[in-house]
Structure formats: C-alpha cells, structure tokens
C-alpha cells in the first residue's frame, strides 16, 4: 500500500511543480496576479505532497514494511527505533527525498515572506519549483524510495553501522539545509537576470537567506568533522576526501559571496561577480551531489551508484549553461558599476578575500577532479591526497585570517595613514608580541607560530572595535551590560559577523593545535602492562565481550593515570556486525580544553591476555567544536531583524 501511495504523491507532485513553475513564469511575464496565485497554491500543494511522502517513508520504517525495497535494505527487525527514524535519510533514495522536502520547505517560506511582491519574486518562485521538479523526477526514475520489493523478505539487510550515530540525525540535516538554502539566492539571482533588474534588490532580498544557508553548511561541515572524529577511529576530523571537498567548495564560494555582497550593497560594485558567485555556489551544491552519487571519483564514502549520476550531470549542465548564458545576455547592465578608488581600502580587502576564497575553491576543485583529468588526458591513474590540499590551501587560509583582521576596520574607499595607525598599530603589536612569546616558550613549528600570531592579530582588531563602540556608549551614560548588548543589537550585522569571525578563529586554533602538537602511539600490551604517552599511563586491564541488539562487542578496559592521580577507566571497543566485513571501532575518548585522550582498540588475543591499542593525545581539538558554537551565536546575531531598518 505504502509504495503505491508514495509513488502517487510523487507523480502528482511533479505535475504540480512543473505547472507551478510555468504558471509563475507566465504570471510574471503577463503581469496576471491570478496565475501567480495559482503557482503559489501549487507550491503549497507540492510541500504537502513531499511532506506526505516523507511521513509515509518514515511510517514504513517504523512498521518494518519490507515490501518497500529501500526499507528492507536499510533496516533489520533489530534496528532500534531511533535509527529507524534516521535511516529514512540513511542512503541515496531517502536523502534525495530529504533534499526535496527541504527545498519545498524553503519554497514555502519564500512564498509566505514575499507573496504579493511583483518584481523578482514570481520568477524566483518559478525557478525554485523547477528545481523541485527535477528532484522529484530523480525520485521517480533513478532513485525511487518507494520501489516495491517482491517477494517481501522476512527481515531486512540493515543500516551501515557507521551511520548508527547521533551525528547521523544532525549532519545530513544541517548539510542539506545548507545545500538547499543556496537555492533561494540562486533563484532570486536568476530572477534578476530574467527581468534585467540586476541592481541590489536580489542581494538585499536574499542576504538573510545566504547567511542561513551558509550557517547550516558550516554546521554540517563541523558536525561531519565531529562524526568522523568520534566514530571513525582514526583520530582526525578532515581528510580532503572528495565527498568532504564536495561540501567544502560551496562553503568557500558562499563565504566569498557573503563578503562581496556587502560591497555591492555599499558601493554598487561587483554586480557581475556576485551573480557569478551565486551561480557557482549553487552549481557546486549540485556538483557535490553528482560527485557523491555518481561513483565517478573514488572516495572512502562508499555511496551507491547508478544512472543517477547522469541525471545530476545533465541538470548541472542545464543550470550552468542557462545561468551563465543569462549572465552573458545581461552583460552590459552587469558591468556598469563603481570603481575601485584605492588599493588601501575596505573594498580591496574584501576583493582580495574573494580572490583567495575562490582560489581555494578552485584548487580544491582541481585536486578533486585531477584524477579524472589525468586519466582522460594521459591515461594514468593518480590519486590526490592531503599533502596537495594542505600545501596549496594553508597559505591561502593564513592570508584570509590576516584579511579577517584588516577588512572590518580599514576605511571604505581610501584609507589614510592615520586610519591605518589608529586601527592597526595595537593589533599588529599584539600579533608580533604573541609570535615572540610563542617562540620563547618553545613553539618550534613556524606554521603554528604564524597561524596563532595572525589569529591573535585578527582577534585584537575585533576586541579593539568592540572596546571603542562600548566606550562610546558608556559616555552616553549607559551601564556596561547595556552598552555592550545595545552595541551588538544595534549593529547586529556587523557584530554578528565579528562573532562568526571569532568562531572561525577558534576553529583555526583547534586545527593548528591538533596538527602541530598531537601525539600518538600504538602498543601491544599484555594484561597489567602499561604504555606511557605524553605523561599519561595507559594500563591494559583486560577484555570483555557483550551482545548488543545489532552487534557483538569486545571491550578493552584501560586504567589511565597521570602522575600520582587516581586513574580513570577508558573502554575502547570493537563492534562486530553481521552485515559488515570488518569490525567497527568503538572509540573511547575524554575531551578536554587542552587535550583529548583518544583510545582505539586494535587486534586482541581471544583469551583476553593481550591487546593492541592505539593511543592518541590530541591537542586543542575541542576548540574546533567550541568554535562551532560561537559561530552559531554569531549567525543568530547576524540574522535577527535589523532594528535600524524598521
């Protein structure tokens, strides 16, 4: 029953989405409001239908309806309730459904916020419904979530155990909210091209959308790193894998867009550039899905393959050709703009920031598709690994941290020597002193010294600005608390941005610390034996085995002590799943502000007399996650309604 209902809802959904796209465009073209209203009702119906599909699939999972092939492949009767819910989007078909549902949701919100507007909105609605239609099409042809399975099996096959983690509810949801969120600015940009109103309207309309999408994408990336860190058991959080890169590229171009949009708002410059960036960003979200779902590039993420790759490639081609075609068509209107007055100005700092971000996106793109290029041209199989990405990106990111300090304080148009002295003398001195102190206390890694000094410089510029603003408010007689909150709320965009910058600096601190100072070792210990790492003693106490609902688990017990302190007990394990070839690591870790203890159980003697253990002491990693929290606060601050605008 469920397969037929779901399939039916999908088909009706496609018809309505296509109709709505056409009606909205026709309404915009002819100026007949009835058509636009009809398109709005279609959008509402599409949202209801996709929601129904989602609920149907969830219901099929909760009731173990193995007549649905997707359910049978993603669960077994022993899958607990919680993972049956997350399994809805645990694989290809369901994740496309989640994507479509979020698109429909964004479209609904766009309708609610902008209905009645005449200029850009009808065309944007048309574009969004068209994009939804594509995703619904994918769900009826190459990736059908409601395909029937006959004969109906007695039990299902089961979810990939790596996905049995709380990160699986949040990581894909955040990432997809980010990916799909960029559809809104893209749709309005397309509307701008179609109508020829390529001024600032689309930028100001979509400013909040872009921040929301960017924020969710950042969150998705960070949660992905967190999942990798505490589930995969290799002690790292980022590996430059193609699938990670796929999500990182739109983040880079999206970040560039956030900054360059400010210049267009302020100085009427960069129209062409901003439209290009939004097209690139949206294109990269589609490219990312293509990359992860087509099997074209080898990745550790073992995602499914099939004809879906061709669908996404065709869609990507259509999007890029039409969008850049529109850009060429409106060329003359897009190139009329203000001029750059001086190299020493905020515009040029932002411009440089854009150049570096797009350069980073390009190198990541190049590194990701290089294996393909090499095979196509020279017939040689190669793989591009972390060393390439690190080498080209580290200098770019360092420059970006430097610009993060410069950009917000340097004057618009043309900075005077006085402006530079007033704003940067203090922060530069702080950065230099920091570098000297770090060197004196024995930090020998030049890269670490450089990163931390630059980060402190950037943080100092922010502190300086907040200090000045607060002092000005104190002079008007406000109390300290009121002065600070008043400052933050009154200029929420500016200070939201600053808080986000602080979050990014904390992430940089965590990345630097973990790269420069983490230590690890691997040891095979007999029971009662200990290994010492970074001042900690890890003593092997023995093994035990348990049977859980989905797997068997072998647990090693280790007593961890430092100096004369009382030992704590850590229990890394290995999980054996029926459907998996290799056992899966159950990492045990203790997080701390300066260091994490991180244990991974390796091979062991069956009688429990000996075990191999990998011990990692990871430095400052927690600051990456703390940075994520700070970033969240900043994003919230940046999107609260502007009280000035009211």
């Amino acid at each position, binding site marked *: 029953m469920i397969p037929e209902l779901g399939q039916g809802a999908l088909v009706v959904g496609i018809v309505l989405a296509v109709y709505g796209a056409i009606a909205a465009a026709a309404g915009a073209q002819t100026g007949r409001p009835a058509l636009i209203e009809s398109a709005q009702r279609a959008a509402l119906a599409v949202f209801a239908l996709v929601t129904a599909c989602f609920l149907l699939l969830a219901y099929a999972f909760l009731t173990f309806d193995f007549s649905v092939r997707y359910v049978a492949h993603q669960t077994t009767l022993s899958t607990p309730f919680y993972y049956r819910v997350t399994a809805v989007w645990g694989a290809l078909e369901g994740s496309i459904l989640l994507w479509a549902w979020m698109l429909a949701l964004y479209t609904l919100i766009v309708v609610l916020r902008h209905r009645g507007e005449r200029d850009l909105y009808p065309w944007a609605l048309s574009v969004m419904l068209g994009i939804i239609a594509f995703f619904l099409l994918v769900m009826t042809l190459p990736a059908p979530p409601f395909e029937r399975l006959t004969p109906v099996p007695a039990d299902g096959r089961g979810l990939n155990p790596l996905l049995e983690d709380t990160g699986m509810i949040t990581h894909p949801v955040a990432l997809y909210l980010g990916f799909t969120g960029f559809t809104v600015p893209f749709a309005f940009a397309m509307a701008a091209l179609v109508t020829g109103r390529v001024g600032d309207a689309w930028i100001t309309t979509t400013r909040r959308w872009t921040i929301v999408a960017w924020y969710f994408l950042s969150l998705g990336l960070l949660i992905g790193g967190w999942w990798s860190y505490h589930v995969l058991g290799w002690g790292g959080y980022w590996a430059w894998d193609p699938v990670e890169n796929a999500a990182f590229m739109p983040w880079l171009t999206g970040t560039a867009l956030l900054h360059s949009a400010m210049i267009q708002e302020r100085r009427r410059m960069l129209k062409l550039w901003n439209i290009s960036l939004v097209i690139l960003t949206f294109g990269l979200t589609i490219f990312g899905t293509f990359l992860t779902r087509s099997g074209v590039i*080898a990745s550790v993420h073992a995602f499914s393959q099939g004809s879906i790759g061709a669908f996404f490639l065709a869609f990507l*081609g259509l999007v890029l050709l039409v969008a850049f075609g529109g850009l*060429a068509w409106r060329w003359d209107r897009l190139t009329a703009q203000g001029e750059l007055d001086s190299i020493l100005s905020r515009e040029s700092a932002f411009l440089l920031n854009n150049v570096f971000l797009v350069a980073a996106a390009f190198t990541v793109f190049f590194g990701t598709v290089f294996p393909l290029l090499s095979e196509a041209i020279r017939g040689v199989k190669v793989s591009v690994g972390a060393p390439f990405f690190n080498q080209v990106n580290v200098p770019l990111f360092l420059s970006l941290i430097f610009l993060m300090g410069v950009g917000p304080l340097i004057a618009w148009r043309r900075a005077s020597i006085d402006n530079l002295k007033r704003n940067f003398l203090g922060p530069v001195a702080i950065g230099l002193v920091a570098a000297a102190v770090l060197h004196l206390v024995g930090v020998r890694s030049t890269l670490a010294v450089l990163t931390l000094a630059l980060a402190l410089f950037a943080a100092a510029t922010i502190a300086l600005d907040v200090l000045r603003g607060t002092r000005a408010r104190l002079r008007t007689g406000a109390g300290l608390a009121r002065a600070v909150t008043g400052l933050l709320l009154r200029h929420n965009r500016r200070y939201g941005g600053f808080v986000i910058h602080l979050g990014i600096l904390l992430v940089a601190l965590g990345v630097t610390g973990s790269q420069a100072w983490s230590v690890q070792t691997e040891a095979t210990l007999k029971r009662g034996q200990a290994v010492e790492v970074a001042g900690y003693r890890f003593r092997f106490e023995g093994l035990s085995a348990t049977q859980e609902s989905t797997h068997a688990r072998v647990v090693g017990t280790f007593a961890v002590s430092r100096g004369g302190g009382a030992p704590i007990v850590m229990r890394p394990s290995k999980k054996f799943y029926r459907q998996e070839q290799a056992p899966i690591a159950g990492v045990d870790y203790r997080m701390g502000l300066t260091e994490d203890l991180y244990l991974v159980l390796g091979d062991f003697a069956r009688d429990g007399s000996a075990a191999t253990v990998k011990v990692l002491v990871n430095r400052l990693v927690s600051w990456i996650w703390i940075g994520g929290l700070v970033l969240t606060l900043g994003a919230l601050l940046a999107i609260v309604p502007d009280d000035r605008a009211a």
Partner: protein
Amino acid sequence: MWRWLIPLSVVPVLGLLAYGFRVNPRDIPSPLVGRPAAPFVLRTFDGRDVSLESLRGRVVVLNFWASWCYPACYEEAPALERSWRAYRGREVSVVGVAIQDQPDAARKFIADFSLSFPNAPDPDGKVSVDYGVYGVPETFFIDRAGRIRRKQTGAVSDDLFRREVEKLLGEPA
C-alpha cells in the same frame, strides 16, 4: 562576443565529468597480470582440499567473494554457476574464495545460489593478500600455464566469462 565564452567554458568541464562515467575509479591495474599465479591450498566448505597445483593444465577462474558483498557478488553468483556448468567438461575450473566472511553466512550464500563449484574460506586472509585483493568481488583468470592473464574488478557476467575463458582455452597448455 567573448562574453559568451563564460557559459561555453562550462562545456569542457561537463565533458570531463561525463568522461568519468566511462572509467571505474576502483579499477586499479593489477601488477600481477602476466605473472605466475601464487600457489594456494584451500580446504573447501564441504571439507575437500583444492590447490592451484592440482589444477595445472586447466584454465582456472579464481573468484573472491563474500556474503556481505551486495549487490555485486549476488549478481555474479548465478552467472558464475551457469558458466561453470557450461564449461566444466572443457578443462575449466572455477574456485570461489570467501574472504572476511562468517562461515554460516558464507554457507548460506552457497546454498542460496546452489553453487556447485568448489568454494573455500580464506581464514587467515593469506590467499587474498597474495592476490592483492582490494575488495570483492574480484576475479582472476589463470591460464593453463598457471599465469594470471586478467583481473576483473566487480561482477563477472556470462559474456565476460565466455570471452576470457574461450581465449585461454584456445592457447596450448
């Protein structure tokens, strides 16, 4: 007019990505092709011994599989069984090696597909290491002289089996 170069520049990128459909990134050329196949002795699931040495002079199709390898191993199992039945009278041997598998699951797999060619577990993984197996399924076609002539990554089809085996049968021992 040069502004139209911007949309046009998309075309080569798309072309490159489309080219990606034609190549398999997991298809890594094996350095073992052309070399003598590593000898092995395996005890099959039904308790008999099978060794490469005892098959010298026959064309050997050595297939690495696992019951958890879905869907490729499930696709190729019927094809392998059909092909083995078609060629068993013509100096062709098929040997299946279940790697990193649980014995019960592997036995069920053999029973489900009624596999009648010898199938053996590789308990310490020695044979799969000797053959440099990356993943499953992988299949090695070994000629009468005991040299590896082709490595197939991914499911074996009836066609592929026939083509490779006919070629090797046509060669003198």
